[in-house]
């Protein structure tokens, strides 16, 4: 009774959120993704979908543009309903792809991995987030999804402003602080920051990774032990120090990533720490100055991972077409296309990549991946941690939390989840 009722409520909720979706019919191929239409992935995937259409003129292809939040928040309910598409981009991680795979809502891709020849393109390191065990924990188990691109967080910098101020690209944290000081002395706030958004917690995590070793990252991401707060304490102290010295502004607590990236693209702040998902936007919109990116100096780990996953829902009516589409995206042709659109590719043909942004980003990603330095994202281990980190980060930036209190508060939520798993 209670299950039946809750199912009614769920279906009602899911259909409200989806609006009207046409039911899949024979020869109809439903596909969803949420990368922006002007992102490297969006452009490339649209072209690949055109090729799929051309190869199968008898199939009607229905593409729906979703948003990250839609699937982050209601993805499991959608996949649990009859409204699920034939193939879709799905958020990677335990709380999302892991959860739905453990509930049996996805198609196992173990056989396809070898049958489709994906094993010749991807390596085991790029599959870490494709595999989830029976409990939905990444890293081992069957293959439930395939990523066709990479992403990482780095510092974007204004090359013109650096040259004018006589600042060299920093290779250590000390040099980075010195660069900040030079700009500050010239009356410029050096670092744009969306304190209430993703870039706030990614900066914190990048700083924490300067004090993190393999054990710490594995424990942290695997929810294996109560949180060892030392790296976060260092990150929080560094951040408050930067705030006190004026390298970032207290106003950042009222800014989201859009506001902060605008500070960078408009040339007001010479640096902005964020992910490769900005590459398309920056390539298209920065006309007044040259810009580049450098990795935040850490011993090994950077915030980053393979990209979101292509998953095939259990109820997919066209799994073969879905696999064909994934194969297209992994082909040299579209991997090269993706790099040329400024994206981070696994298997682009270096000779074919003419876009320096995509070539550089793909090369940096390959370097990080080669030393196994993908530290993943700080919000992964605990469902809902994304909001916790944002809230506590703003507390730290506005001065209502000391670095010690900050660590206590995030540790409490982490340890709570760790104990109750």
């Amino acid at each position, binding site marked *: 009774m209670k299950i039946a009722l809750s199912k*009614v409520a769920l279906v009602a909720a899911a259909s409200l959120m989806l609006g009207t979706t046409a039911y899949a019919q024979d020869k109809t191929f439903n596909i969803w993704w949420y990368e922006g239409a002007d992102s490297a992935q969006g452009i490339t995937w649209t072209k690949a979908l055109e090729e799929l259409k051309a190869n199968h003129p008898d199939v009607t292809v229905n593409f729906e543009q979703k948003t990250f939040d839609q699937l982050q928040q209601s993805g499991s309910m959608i996949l649990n309903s009859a409204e699920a598409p034939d193939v879709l981009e799905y958020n990677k991680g335990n709380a999302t792809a892991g959860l739905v795979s453990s*509930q049996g809502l996805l198609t196992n891709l173990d056989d396809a991995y070898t049958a489709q020849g994906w094993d010749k393109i991807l390596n085991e390191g790029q599959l870490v987030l494709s595999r989830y065990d029976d409990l939905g924990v990444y890293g081992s188990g069957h293959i439930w999804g395939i990523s066709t691109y990479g992403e990482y967080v780095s510092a974007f910098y204004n090359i013109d402003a650096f040259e004018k101020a006589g600042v060299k690209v920093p290779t250590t944290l000390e040099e980075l602080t010195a660069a900040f000081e030079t700009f500050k002395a010239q009356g410029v706030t050096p670092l744009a920051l969306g304190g209430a958004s993703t870039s706030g917690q990614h900066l914190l995590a990048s700083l924490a990774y300067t004090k993190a070793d393999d054990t710490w990252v594995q424990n942290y991401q695997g929810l294996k032990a109560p949180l060892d707060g030392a790296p976060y304490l260092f990150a929080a102290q560094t951040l408050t120090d930067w705030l006190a010295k004026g390298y970032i502004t207290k106003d950042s607590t009222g800014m989201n990533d859009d506001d902060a990236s605008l500070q960078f693209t408009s040339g007001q702040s010479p640096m902005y720490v964020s992910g490769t998902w900005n590459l398309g936007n920056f390539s298209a919109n920065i006309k007044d100055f040259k810009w580049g990116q450098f990795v935040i100096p850490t011993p090994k780990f950077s915030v980053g991972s393979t990209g979101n996953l292509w998953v095939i829902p259990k109820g997919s009516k066209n799994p073969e077409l879905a696999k064909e589409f994934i194969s297209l995206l992994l082909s040299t042709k579209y991997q090269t296309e993706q790099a040329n659109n400024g994206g981070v590719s696994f298997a682009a043909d270096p000779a074919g990549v003419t876009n320096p942004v995509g070539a550089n980003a793909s090369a940096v990603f390959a370097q990080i991946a080669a030393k196994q330095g993908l530290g993943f994202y700080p919000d992964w281990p605990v469902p809902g941690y994304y909001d916790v980190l*944002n809230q*506590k980060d703003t507390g730290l930036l506005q001065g*209502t939390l000391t670095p010690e209190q900050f660590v206590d508060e995030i540790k409490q939520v982490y340890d709570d989840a760790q104990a109750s798993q």
Partner: protein
Amino acid sequence: MAGESVGSHRRGYYLYLIPGFVGLVVIVIGPQIANFVLSFTAWKGVGTPRWVGGQNYQRLLTDDQFWGSMHNTLLYMISMTAIPVLIGIVLASLLFDYVRDQFGEKVSSFFRAAFYLPQILPLTVAGVLWGWILNPVGVANAILKTVGLGWLAQNWIGDATYALSAVSLVIVWVQVGYCLVVFMAGMSRIDPALYEAAQLDGAGWWQRLVSITIPMLAPEIFVVVLTTLIAALKVFAPVFVLTQGGPDDATLAPSYLTYYHFFTTQRVGYAAAVSTVQMILTLGLAVIFLMFQQRQAAKGA
């Protein structure tokens, strides 16, 4: 005679209630019961819920976020009910009693429509606009700096000192129109002779407001206070669009907490417990108010 024939046909009328009743059960009562049952379980949103008894409610008692959000609700009641009702009465009286007499019906209607506009605008749109106005590099601070009041510029939605007030300001802006329109409709019901008599006796605008308008508007005020209090208990959209409950939970509301646990921490049972408490409070408030109103009405009769 007539009573008999109505009585014998009455059963046939119940058939017509079925569609409405089915809607009520499927959309309102069913989910409420499901929600109540779920509040005693641990559930991730998919799979089978696990019965945990009163654990969710126990957790609720010691959850700082929950109590913080309840505390904020009291303040949202001020910005959703108290301030808009007061401003609404004064403005309605000004428009009805003064502006209309001095400047004519058209000017008065124009202002009424203008004050009501925020109610028509989707809150998600209005929220984005207010976000542009209130963010640290936004319109509000830019204007303050241009007119030489730069020292007044604040990080409105990013600083816990101001964030709750900033969100409240937006809520007041939205709510005033609703109060105003209901009050103006009520005023057209009041016998003009009362005002004329008062005017002849030398009563000014303020005296007329206090001695005639407010007592005569009691039923409207009552309805507006009840509906806006319920809305304050359920406030969600302005918080969601402007601050996501931040900075550091300074603007958190119970509905946002429910949403957060339902959709991101996957503690669906816990989210259900929060919303059950919210529902009981709302129902309790409504019952108390309706009883109070009935007593008033009985007294009046």
